[in-house]
């Protein structure tokens, strides 16, 4: 693909995005603290700038990489995006090494409670490098294979480095190591709640969309109802469901045995389903009704039954838009599930609220970062799925 890029335009135009990102990263990484050292969990730490954190060789290397990206992106070279991909990809993959060097240089020996944490400079570097990578992949028009490979390499490298001994002092790792079982449990609860809600609401949405297609009189009431549910603040829904569910479960012992109570997973699931309905119903309905009537007319005129029209024409054409609805809903549900921890539903929200209560920001991050990661992974997976299911190829 780079070849096409190079040969089609004899003098490739200089890229404007990558140099700006690299320059901003260069400035921020020198201005902001790369990391902090805390004597224990609660006491605020002391910040270290780039040079202080990783020494002149480290600072030089970071600056060199950023300056090199800046330079390469401006030069009119055919292969520059592949060079940038290697540069940005490797930097991202090896980024935790900066923290490792930082911890090795500054962590006082024999103080078991001391911990290093990630500073604003590091976060900025991570964010800007990621943006650069996205821009580069876009310019390369990289296929799904390349994108997946880059993601696996970077993700794998981070996992290996974070599990290694060098980063044991990192506050996030400390928090994780303190309660690995709780983390696994939170992950399971979070996934079960979010995907359970998405699955149930997908089923409901299909039924409601079909009902709306068959009887147009139902369109306004149904869309009105699901839109209304979306407008209630999420915390209020969680709270409002406590009373009726408590009453129900005390009236019917069967429900109690199933674990349905005023707090816990039951109200959380109900609320999540209520929130998921709007994007799901709207996308499914719009996708199915926007199949051109002329196509249905042609199919019908050729002798297709309504059933055949539905499964052979409408569903295949509507599927990418429906999956787009599932994608939006999933991301939204993963985020909302974090809030559901307030009513005892479990999930990563538990760490967040616990951390807020103890003003331990690292514990908050232990809940927030996996939530973000889950949402990103779900987004990527559904995008891939929608792209591979797209029934209509690009026009000639």
């Amino acid at each position, binding site marked *: 693909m780079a070849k096409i890029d190079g040969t089609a335009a004899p003098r490739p135009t200089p890229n404007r995005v990558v140099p700006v990102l690299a320059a901003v990263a260069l400035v921020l990484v020198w201005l902001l603290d790369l990391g902090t050292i805390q004597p224990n969990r609660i006491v605020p730490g002391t910040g270290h700038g780039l040079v202080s954190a990783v020494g002149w060789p480290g600072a030089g290397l970071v600056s060199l990489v950023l300056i090199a990206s800046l330079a390469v992106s401006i030069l009119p070279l055919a292969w520059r995006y592949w060079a940038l991909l290697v540069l940005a990809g490797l930097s991202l993959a090896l980024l935790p090494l900066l923290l490792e060097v930082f911890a090795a240089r500054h962590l006082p020996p024999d103080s078991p409670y001391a911990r290093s944490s990630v500073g604003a400079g590091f976060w900025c570097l991570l964010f800007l490098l990621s943006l650069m990578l996205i821009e580069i992949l876009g310019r390369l028009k990289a296929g799904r294979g390349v994108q997946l490979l880059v993601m696996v390499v970077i993700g794998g490298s981070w996992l290996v480095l974070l599990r290694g001994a060098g980063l044991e002092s990192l506050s996030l790792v400390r928090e994780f190591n303190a309660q690995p079982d709780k983390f696994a449990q939170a992950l399971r609860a979070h996934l079960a709640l979010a995907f359970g809600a998405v699955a149930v609401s997908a089923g409901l949405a299909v039924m409601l969309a079909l009902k709306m297609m068959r009887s147009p009189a139902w369109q306004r009431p149904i869309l009105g109802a699901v839109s209304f549910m979306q407008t209630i603040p999420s915390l209020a829904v969680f709270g409002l469901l406590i009373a009726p569910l408590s009453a129900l479960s005390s009236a019917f012992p069967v429900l109690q045995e199933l674990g349905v109570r005023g707090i816990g997973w039951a109200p959380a699931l109900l609320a999540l389903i209520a929130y998921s309905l709007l994007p799901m119903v709207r996308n499914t309905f719009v996708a199915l009704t926007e199949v051109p009537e002329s196509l249905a*007319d042609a199919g019908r005129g*050729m*002798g*297709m039954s309504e059933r055949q029209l539905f499964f052979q024409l409408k569903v295949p054409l509507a599927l990418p838009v429906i999956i787009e609805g599932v994608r939006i809903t999933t991301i939204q549900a993963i985020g909302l599930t974090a809030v559901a921890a307030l009513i005892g539903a479990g999930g990563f929200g538990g760490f967040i609220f616990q951390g807020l209560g103890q003003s331990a920001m690292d514990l908050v991050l232990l809940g927030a970062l996996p939530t973000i990661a889950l949402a990103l992974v779900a987004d990527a997976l559904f995008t891939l799925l929608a792209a591979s299911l797209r029934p*209509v190829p690009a026009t000639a």
Partner: protein
Amino acid sequence: MIELKQVTRRFGNVVAVDAIDLTIETGEVCVLVGSSGCGKSTTLRMINRLLPHSAGDILVDGKSITTMNPQQLRLNMGYVIQGTGLFPHWTVARNIAMVPRLLKWPQARIDERVRELMTLLDLDPATHADKYPQQLSGGQAQRVGVARALAADPNILLMDEPFGALDAITRDNLQLEMLRIQQQVRKTTVFVTHDIDEALKLATRIAVMDRGRIVQHDTPENILRRPASEFVENLVGRQDRGLKLMSLRPVRELMTPHASPKRSDPGADALKEDDSVRLALSVMLWQDLKQLAVFNARGEETGVITRERIMQDGL
């Protein structure tokens, strides 16, 4: 054979088709022509029961269509619409195979039939079979539309302004193509158009419709020579009729044949026996000639046509 007996269609209080009688013989091309809203499309869509008729009866080969299963009825009627209606997520081959698949033909027979039809419609199976409709030009897509309609070899072909959205040159080509195919397959065809020239060119008989009624049902020649009302007269063009009539007549009818065909080089623009008298006259006027040689399909000169003869007997 298709018979419409006192067929009426009402939308609410509006009468779209008003008690029409129409008989379409087997193998003939009946063109319904009229301005928009005259009920021609409605009439067509009642024949395959996409619209139910409000009163009267429609018979196909003597059997009332209301007694038949609508899907079975439609599977035996090819249907071509304006803008093709090809399924965008299916390849050309899959689109053409639609009805044979609905009829559960074996795959080998379907593949064979698709190749046959693509060849008939001048589409190269090797290059076009795996393309998607939106990768085709308008003309190619409508050829696929016609191939799809012919796929299961139905007895009846219903065409609803099939060439309406095409440019003039493509439309002209497809009309000629249709005449050629009709010579081979002889389908009972009902063709809807608002273009009187298209109607004159393709029809064996034309039904002129106006405000839900058939105002005249006759051969193209009679429609031109003896329009039944002022409406028809205006539709075919009062002043233009002379040339239109000439365009219905092949050169063969007016030429002076040679005793035996002569060998000579016809050239690309040579006049052929099947060309219209109108074309012959046009060439003579343009090149300022008194007469023109006429060639047959094998490129042999079979006769001459003179300007004098056209002036005498052209109409």
